[in-house]
């Protein structure tokens, strides 16, 4: 549980900041998705954008968490399986 939260929570904070900066500089109506102009409502674009940022940041946090494990920890995990 603690690991899940230490992945989700900081990435949530950073995603919020990234979302703010990104959409301040870029108008969602000017985005293209697979070569087509984005046709969602602005609110939908902002929301989907936020979750994409969150997912990306979470992936990074997850990698950090994964690599932070000490040799002892992952040796132990191997023995358990």
């Amino acid at each position, binding site marked *: *549980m603690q690991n899940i939260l230490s992945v989700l929570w900081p990435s949530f904070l950073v995603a919020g900041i990234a979302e703010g900066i990104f959409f*301040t*500089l870029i*108008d969602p109506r000017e985005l293209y998705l697979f070569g087509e102009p984005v046709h969602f409502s*602005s*609110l939908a674009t902002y*929301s989907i954008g936020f979750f994409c940022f969150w997912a990306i940041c979470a992936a990074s946090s997850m990698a950090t968490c994964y690599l932070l494990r000490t040799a002892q920890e992952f040796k132990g995990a191997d023995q358990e399986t």
Partner: protein
Amino acid sequence: MLTPLAVTSKPVTFVEQGLYEVHEKVYPRSVTGVYATWRWLMVWLTQTLFYGLCWLPWNGRQAVLFDLTARKFYIFGLAFWPQDIIYLAVLLIISAYSLFLFTAVGGRLWCGYACPQTVYTEIFLWIERKIEGNRAARIKLDANAMSPRKLLLRVAKYSAWGLLALWTGFTFVGYFTPIKMLWVSVWSFSLGPWEIFWIIFYGAFTYLFAGHLREQVCKYMCPYARFQGVMFDPDTLTITYDATRGEPRGSHKKGEAYKAQGKGDCVDCSICVQVCPTGIDIRKGLQYECIGCAACIDACDQVMEKMGTPKGLIRYSTEHAIAAQWGWKEIIRHIVRPRVLVYTAILWTIIAAFIWGIATKSALRVDVIRDRAVLAREVEGGLIENVYRLHVMNASEAAHRYAITVSGLPEINMIGERIIELPPAGDRTFMVQVRVPPDSGKRGSNVIYFEVKAMADETTVIREKAAFIQP
């Protein structure tokens, strides 16, 4: 109110699986006093602002509205476009420096009195107390097996929390979508899917943070709590237990000559621990969990009053003051120190720049973007044409007619709207074609100027540079 000292309970040991670690559930005991009154004042002030401001009308629109769809922020008489991001950035810097200054002078004042986490926890705790009773009653209720009464109390509490959380979520979304329309949509069941989502999302987080996580948010989730220590120095006012006066602690009766027996003023009633929202013992010294709410000061003062000893065994004081037993005069004299002076100077400089920036903010904004699809083309009569997209933004509180002209090349001419009309705080994007003879200007990029002028007010004029491509 504090209950009589006689019923002081033993330390509570309900261990529950928290989201972060196994922790003991904290049952903060209700407290009254000077600092509790200040906190409630701040709760009223911040929440009247938060729940009320979105309903305030201004010049026919919502006074404070962050209109994401139109990419326009309204704050009373001011309209901001994404191009005005600098103001937001400066505002954030001002907030950060204010936080540094307050923390250097008075410790975690923000955490103890104004942070939404503190404020909502306080409101949720109030609801909990009204429904489930005081601290002792809540501990007992938790220990009891499920019964019809317990179920009823639980349902009542969770429903009350839920309603408040939903209202908070609704208010939050109301800052991004005009709240009166949102309110109508609720009752006509026509809320958009994302509006419903964000109301529930924000509401659920409020419920979780204020109802269940509480002090764990401050202890494990808040980044500020982790670095606020660096702004402290030995002259920072913090909630401090005066160990020289209090120790050795031990119970004694009122009027007893306890000092002759070598005892200190602390009667070890543990009420300072019971009122603590983060469940720490302030007598162990300054700890990072302490959010500076001063509940223990209020609680201890009441006990000291009953015991007939001077108040302030736990008080706002500084490391230096406790060590040297300074009075208030000395403490206040030490507030003015290099760190505080530097923070103050920086803060006022930025505030002054911000006010100057807002006051001299132009009532008109123009963006000129060359059309990306067309570089340059030859049109009838052998003329060369470039296409531009103009975005004209009226940042004033009056409707205006604007005249648009172009200059910078011989025989330059503009096709398209030459006069546009904009409502207060309105904006429009439109295309114009600019034509010149093929021998006008040099080959390649030429500088031209668009001039947008308010027709009623000659002083409101913007000249924007653009590039004209001559093939």
